[in-house]
């Protein structure tokens, strides 16, 4: 067990592991997303109030869940990097940030589209929307700080500190805007209660969420390999690979 964890810290070994894990996650992502998309768009019943417009939930909810998970993943990687000085963890945090920002934007964008038929407005200063918007700015801040330090990993520790400060602040921001203003419906999935939707609606949603997660993992592995190659480009094993 521990040798496995220690080996993960080696860029070369991690590069090889990513290559081995990648195909499985790509296949899972492709299958889950295809099944989920067809099921949710063609076979699940329309909502009795919102009609077909509710189907945007099948992109909206997975994107929003991913937006939060990716930040937590980034924070974990940053903590590992700061505590054990494992470079691969910082590389993982680097490649996760743009994807998280994209998911946050996708969640906001689809929510905005969905808001027009249901709430009658593109935007409202509701707690969840505001919290997501602030989270998008946190992502952009993390990406911008890394960008300010240039392409090498000088700014890595600074970015890790900022990510950890951000993750401490996310719950505070969340609750402060919740007390400030609320219109959005409560979370669709909770671990403790059964969803309020019929199974024909939430099962494809669950498949879509799992599909998004698989896609995220596959893409992260793929980009992590590139990042390892880029940062370790002076080492002999990368040059041997390139030849």
């Amino acid at each position, binding site marked *: 067990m521990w040798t496995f964890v220690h080996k993960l810290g080696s860029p070369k070994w991690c590069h090889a592991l990513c290559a081995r894990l990648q195909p499985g996650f790509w296949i899972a992502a492709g299958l889950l997303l295809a099944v989920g998309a067809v099921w949710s768009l063609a076979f699940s019943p329309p909502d009795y109030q919102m009609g077909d417009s509710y189907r945007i939930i099948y992109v909206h909810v997975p994107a929003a869940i991913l937006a939060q998970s990716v930040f937590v993943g980034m924070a974990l990687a940053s903590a590992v990097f700061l505590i054990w000085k494992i470079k691969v963890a910082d590389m993982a945090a680097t490649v996760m940030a743009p994807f998280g920002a994209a998911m946050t934007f996708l969640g906001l964008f689809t929510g905005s589209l969905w808001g027009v038929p249901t709430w009658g407005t593109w935007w409202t200063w509701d707690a969840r929307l505001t919290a997501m918007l*602030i*989270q998008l*700015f*946190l992502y*952009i*801040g993390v990406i*911008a*700080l890394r960008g*300010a*330090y240039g392409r090498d990993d*000088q700014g890595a*520790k*600074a970015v890790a*500190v*900022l990510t*950890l*400060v*951000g993750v*401490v*602040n996310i719950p*505070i*921001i969340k609750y*402060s*805007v919740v*007390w*400030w203003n609320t219109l959005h419906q409560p979370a669709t999935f909770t671990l403790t209660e059964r969803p309020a939707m019929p199974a024909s609606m939430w099962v494809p949603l669950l498949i879509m969420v799992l599909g998004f997660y698989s896609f995220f993992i596959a893409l992260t592995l793929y980009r992590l390999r590139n990042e390892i190659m880029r940062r370790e480009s002076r080492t002999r094993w990368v040059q041997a690979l390139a030849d």
Partner: protein
Amino acid sequence: MSSREMPVATPTRLGWAHVCLAQLRRELALARRRGGDWLNPLLFLALVVVLFPLGISPQPARLADVAPGLLWVAALLAMLLSLDALFRTDHADGTLEQMLLAPQPLPLLCLTKVVVHWLLTGVPLALCAPWLGVLLSLPAGAAPVLIGSLLLGSATLSLIGAIGAALTVGLPRGGILLSLLILPLYIPVLIFGAGAVQTALAGGSAAPAMALLGAMLALAVAGAPFAIAGALRISVNG
């Protein structure tokens, strides 16, 4: 790191309180010699407040409506602008390295610096805000809550902002980046700070919002000095 294992010379062991006091005096002396620098955030606040009646409407009723939030946003931006210089001169003249090398705990020294920053920007801003509130037709009854919320809130803003200032001190153009990093983290303080004044104006009790501002300050005092110290070590040592 190696200096810890082989003591070269016995350093004079100063007590923590002594060092804090010495640093407090140094910072205040520096501020005194820099002259009117501490006035700049106040002038900024006054100018921003003057812009809004020109931009929105000079009607007293409309201005009084937005006055609490407006004063709070303007004070927050004034704090933000003053933060960029917090560690910059110390970084340029090598004082920061001496702070890092000092045998006393770095978080404590950072906390002292932040306290001075709050005394020289947050406190004057809080005391001036009600006077500018007069320009925005803010009822005089809201003044105590406005001062109290700004005193509590600006201390939190100083502490959080110092983390950002420490992270960007090594960068040549940190200013705009600093606002990008720090403003999202300022939002909870803004919500409850402006909320306290608004509830007081509406006739409710400002106590819950003030209690939350106090809670955020307590959290920031407990956590931020360590984050500032860590960020400074990273910025100086790479």
